[in-house]
């Protein structure tokens, strides 16, 4: 990662739903090409925070920029520079693989020629050439994930947001998926990923742990293990998040 | 047995949690019966009649004042030229035009005969027929008066005695409100049931429940129970409104009516269940009930258009719609005040439908999953 360029800058972000404070004054920065892990128990506020960064939700107070644009005023501009993969994978299940690629490619402004070449490139990289005409609903879970990720990357965004991208998948497929993430990061894309698989936390450059809406820790996995005298991230997590009051 | 009650309790919790939907389902029928009960009517009020004729003529003036005095008609505009009247008809501003021929007075008194032409907007044949009928009635009264003037009272007015049975005031609501009751009860009940069950199917919680040691038959019945209760609440509110607000009488036995309604609700539940079995998504269930059930029921079951006026083929088709039988029962009990004997046939048919629908949908339910 390039420590000089910040792609995400967040300061004192708060999000309330009525009386419930989902995100309670968080501040952090993320650097270009960094793999930033956003950890926390269910209900800690991770997804809410991520949705604000993506421009899907408006913060109650606080400010920040994503890819150089304000999260308060320029949500639409942000969307041009980011990619997103939601927990539900959000591809159109009644469309074929190549049709999904075409749709999202076109939405992000790729022209027909670019779409065609991108499609070929992507299918080759994912070894899915034979699945070109398969309906997404007929694909196994691991394939859907990889496809969703590739589509999120298709328009070369600066930052890609991944919300629990590997839930429900076997360890081998998860490892493969992370290969894709590494590749993207080495190409200079900032990867912002939420997860509650603690072994994945080890793969990140830096990790933040949210508890009850606040960031309780923010550092590289190595530093955190040292600080909390833990052998692995699992232990770090239990020590920090064990104090959590909120859990879904 | 204990488990079944547990299931039933759980179903009620589901409903009480989704307060908005429950509210919608309880309030909708009330609003609908109020709106439709009053709005669906074929009575003609103040139909606009234009005149083309010489208004200095006393006969013309008499007819005009009779029309004004008639509660169903009212005078529109008076024209010199027929073409103006035609334009009014085309724009829909007048329902009929009354043409008195030229030199009407002279022709009437000297020649003994003068032509009056009633030209009505035939687009809606029903209204046209009624309006023409009223205008003819007015002309006949005027005719009568003039003739009596001439030859003195006597046997000129020859009418048999007329008794209007069951609905002497000829309130349109007597005819339509039972229909609306049936429509609302059936559609809301089956929609509610179908969509909720399909929702559980989609979410996967249905499978969970079916894996339990309780027999599927009881599970299904427990599923239907809350909708039964809601439908009963709807029935009561609709009946109360129909009687107290819309003035539809309850001349027969309420117990009998409620029994019939219970059976009808049962058949609607069966329909809803059947729809939920064949639908894969909530969308499909909604479409099947909202469009697939609504349209035929509205058009064919005698709610608005009388079954007797339909061609035989459609009458046979309407026989398979439960709502048709229910509405007949409701009208007979409420308005005609008859007893169980008079509706025995319809009640039997309705009961058979209920058993059939429930039976077939429960069977399909078990096999589909």
């Amino acid at each position, binding site marked *: 990662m390039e420590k000089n360029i910040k792609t995400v800058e967040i300061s004192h972000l708060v999000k309330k739903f009525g009386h419930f404070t989902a995100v309670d004054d968080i501040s952090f920065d993320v650097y270009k090409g960094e793999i930033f892990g956003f950890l926390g128990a269910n209900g800690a506020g991770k997804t809410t925070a991520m949705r604000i960064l993506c*421009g899907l939700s*408006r913060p109650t107070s606080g400010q920040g920029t994503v890819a150089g644009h304000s999260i308060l005023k320029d*949500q*639409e501009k942000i*969307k041009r520079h*980011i990619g997103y993969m939601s927990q539900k994978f*959000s591809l159109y299940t009644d*469309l074929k693989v190549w049709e999904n690629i075409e*749709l999202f490619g076109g*939405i992000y402004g790729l022209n027909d020629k670019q779409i065609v070449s991108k499609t070929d490139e992507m299918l080759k990289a994912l070894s899915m050439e034979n699945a070109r005409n398969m309906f997404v609903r007929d694909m196994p879970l691991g394939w859907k994930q990889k496809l969703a990720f590739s589509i999120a990357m298709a328009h070369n965004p600066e930052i890609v947001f991944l919300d629990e991208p590997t839930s429900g998948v076997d360890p081998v497929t998860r490892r493969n998926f992370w290969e894709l993430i590494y590749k993207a990061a080495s190409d200079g894309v900032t990867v912002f990923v939420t997860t509650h698989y603690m072994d994945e936390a080890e793969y990140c450059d830096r990790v933040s742990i949210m508890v009850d809406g606040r960031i309780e820790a923010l550092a590289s996995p190595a530093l955190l293990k040292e600080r909390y005298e833990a052998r692995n991230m699992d232990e770090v997590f239990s020590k920090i998040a064990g104090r959590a009051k909120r859990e879904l | 047995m204990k488990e079944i009650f547990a299931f039933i309790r759980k179903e009620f919790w589901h409903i009480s949690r*989704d307060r*908005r939907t429950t509210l919608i389902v309880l309030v*909708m029928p009330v609003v609908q019966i109020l*709106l439709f009960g*009053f*709005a*669906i*009517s074929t009575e003609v*009020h103040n139909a606009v009649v234009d005149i083309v004729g010489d208004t200095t003529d006393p006969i013309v003036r008499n007819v005009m004042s009779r029309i004004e005095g008639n509660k169903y008609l009212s005078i529109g505009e008076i024209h010199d030229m027929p073409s103006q009247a035609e334009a009014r008809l*085309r*724009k*829909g501003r007048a329902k009929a035009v009354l043409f008195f021929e030229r030199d009407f007075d002279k022709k*009437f008194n000297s020649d*003994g005969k003068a032509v009056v032409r*009633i030209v*009505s907007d*035939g*687009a809606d044949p029903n209204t*046209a027929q009624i309006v023409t009928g009223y205008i003819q009635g007015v*002309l006949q009264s005027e005719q009568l008066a003039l*003739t009596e003037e001439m*030859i003195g009272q*006597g*046997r000129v007015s020859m*009418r*048999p*005695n*007329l*008794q*209007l*049975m069951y*609905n002497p005031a*000829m309130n349109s609501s*007597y005819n*339509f409100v039972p229909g609306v009751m049936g429509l609302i009860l059936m559609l809301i009940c089956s929609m509610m049931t179908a*969509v909720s069950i399909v*929702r559980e199917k989609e979410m996967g919680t249905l499978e969970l429940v079916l894996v339990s040691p309780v027999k599927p038959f009881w599970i299904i019945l427990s599923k239907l129970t809350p909708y039964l209760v809601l439908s009963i609440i709807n029935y009561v509110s609709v009946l109360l409104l129909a009687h107290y607000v819309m003035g539809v009488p309850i001349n027969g036995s309420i117990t009998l009516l409620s029994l019939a309604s219970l059976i009808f609700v049962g058949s609607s539940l069966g329909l809803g269940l059947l729809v939920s079995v064949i639908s894969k998504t*909530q*969308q499909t269930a*909604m479409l099947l009930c*909202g*469009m697939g059930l*609504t349209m035929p029921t509205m*058009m064919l079951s005698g709610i*608005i258009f009388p079954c*007797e*006026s339909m061609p035989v083929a459609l009458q046979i088709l309407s026989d398979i719609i439960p709502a048709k039988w229910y509405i007949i029962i409701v009208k007979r009990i409420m*308005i*005609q005040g008859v007893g169980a004997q*008079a509706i025995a046939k319809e009640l039997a048919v309705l009961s058979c439908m209920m058993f059939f629908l429930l039976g077939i949908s429960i069977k399909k339910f078990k096999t589909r999953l």
Partner: protein
Amino acid sequence: MWKYLLKKEFKQFFRDPGMPRMVMVFPLIIILVFPFAANMEVRNIRLAVVDNDCSDQSALLIEKCASSGYFKLLSIAKSPAEAQKTMDRGDADAILTINSGFARYLESSLRTGDPIPVGIKVNTVNGTRGSIGAQYLNTCVSSFIASAIGGIGGASVAGAGQFEIHDSFRYNPNMDYKVFMIPALIVIAITMMCGFLPALNIVSEKERGTIEQINVTPVRKTTFIICKMIPYVAVAYYMVFTCLLLAWLVFGYKCQGSYLDIVIFTFAHILVMASFGLLVSNYSENAQQAMFVIWFFSMVFMLMSGIFTPVESMPKWAQVITYANPLRYFAEAMRAIFLKGSSLVDTWPNLLSLLGLGSITTTWAILSYHKTA
């Protein structure tokens, strides 16, 4: 961007298991089945007779009524009570009671003011059917009596002036209910297609989560919404013209007015209905609620639009409500164009109202649709 979104919408539309089939079937049902049902004509009035006079004259009267074509004569009842039971059971619509003394009445002197020994009872649960039945019976009896005594006293009746009444019915000389209902049924079909379906579509995208994926892209919400509507607009036009074609092929009905007017009105109506559906789904917490609310409004719109029963027959407060009902304007205009050949010169108030409603609902729908919550 439009190109790709449109491609997606059309593909999804045709791949839906039920949709294309429904679109094909609907026009057929609307033209081939429903018009035959939609009929308020009073026919086949079942007549029960009680004959206490048992004379030639009474038999003649019964014969006259039976052959008039209005009635279906049931068997002659043995007593008034039995006839009444028949009516209670719903097997008779009217009862003609000829009391003893009928034949004598016809032969007796003209100047007596005795009442006629004939009674008519009609079932007025359906007021129209009852009153028309009464009218027919009345006419039959009165004209029978008049012709029976006509020879004797008729001369004195002549001499007074007589109205010669001609009646005719414009636009629909055969009093054919079908041609009146078909334009209105088309309106209903379009309403269901364009009101129900796009809203259901958006709500299910919401529930599936794909809408979030779109919200995160630079696609403008207006673009997304319009692209979603376009297949349904296309479907609506397809249905209108298929129905018109079928109506011509099957019944020979031709549209008296201009097709362009129909196109314009259809568009205005689609605008209102589709944006209304979107509006409802924007405010609903889940698909179930959205669907119920939309169904509720569809029912209200349909039944209070003048399609089945006239707006003029409604109480004043209900008529006021219909001013906000797009179907009222559309159905009225469709009927005027199809049956009367009215042009925009006559129908412009309807168009203006539709467009007015449309601009309100569209603006509100777009404003209330948030890509960012």
